[in-house]
């Protein structure tokens, strides 16, 4: 049995939240991945979650306690323009309120990939800033790979509610 550390918990919590949003809004057959290259091996529509820079801010003088602000990139790879706009609006509407942070236990057996065993709610990810923009390569869409034709990027800066001593 092993415990994921904070960054991986944030990624996995975000993936779980997006999966829930998609299920609640009847979006079926959308894969949510965290490996960018993997997106190009599966069909659209799909969503890719990545974490970027993390800032650790000291919360007060006289203590080493910090609170982290992490940048989360949500790449949407849609099959068409309309689907892209609907999908990103669905995610934006739900994610802007923040979401729960979970700590995940995984178990790994010799020669096998880690499997999620259990999770426990241990805080919340609150939104500090939120931007969204289309991904435009300035290349005619017909010349692009099918995955790159209808893309949207949501960039979230989220604050983890727990203070790290």
């Amino acid at each position, binding site marked *: 049995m092993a415990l994921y550390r904070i960054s991986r918990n944030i990624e996995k919590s975000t993936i779980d939240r997006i999966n829930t949003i998609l299920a609640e809004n009847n979006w079926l057959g959308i894969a949510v991945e965290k490996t*960018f*290259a993997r*997106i*190009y091996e599966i069909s659209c529509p799909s969503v890719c979650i*990545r974490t*970027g*820079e993390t*800032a650790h801010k000291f919360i007060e003088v006289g203590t080493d306690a910090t609170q982290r602000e992490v*940048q989360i*990139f949500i*790449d949407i790879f849609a099959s068409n323009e309309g689907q892209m706009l609907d999908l990103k609006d669905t995610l934006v509407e739900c994610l802007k309120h923040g979401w729960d942070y979970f700590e995940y236990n995984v178990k790994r057996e010799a020669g096998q990939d880690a499997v999620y065993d259990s999770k426990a709610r241990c805080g919340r990810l609150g939104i500090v*800033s939120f*931007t969204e923009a289309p*991904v*435009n*390569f*300035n*290349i005619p869409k017909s*010349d*692009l*790979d099918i*995955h*790159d034709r209808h*893309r949207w*990027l949501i*960039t979230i*800066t989220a604050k983890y509610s727990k203070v790290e001593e």
Partner: protein
Amino acid sequence: MKFKVTLKERKRGQLKSEIRFITSSIQEFKINILDIGQKAEVKMKGIIDANRQRPVSPHDDTNARASRKSLIDTIKLDVFDSGDIFSWGLGNISELNQYSPHWAMINWGGLPPSTKDYPTLRGKFEPDGGGLFRKGKPYFPIYPTKPIRPLNYIETTTNMVRTSLEAFTNLFRR
């Protein structure tokens, strides 16, 4: 971003000195805003440089096309100061599209176009030269299969500018 300055009851003659104070404060304000821009330029170029996949850019060699520049060289800080309006921007979109059109693919990642999409895109790989792709003979078609990993240098720099501006404007809040 706009700032509103309100002058309350003042004694005779006090207004002139206060206007002088405000004028010098505006200059100081501009210097601080410009400083954030310069730091953003360093940050953006630093992200790109730290994530170079090859030590030598194909455009550094003598056979390089003059119409192409390295992305780091194309990104420049443009400052606009008309007296009333002071602003800066990082990277001129027209120049980027002209000299470094790969800026978008490096920022957002993706699968680069192949010879199928651009019939003139033919060339050769030189494994001994750091795996560089050079246009020219013997003209093999190129079919990339591995996507370019996104650097998101724009979004990361934007976040840095946001936090720097917040910290700076907090100094003016009561």
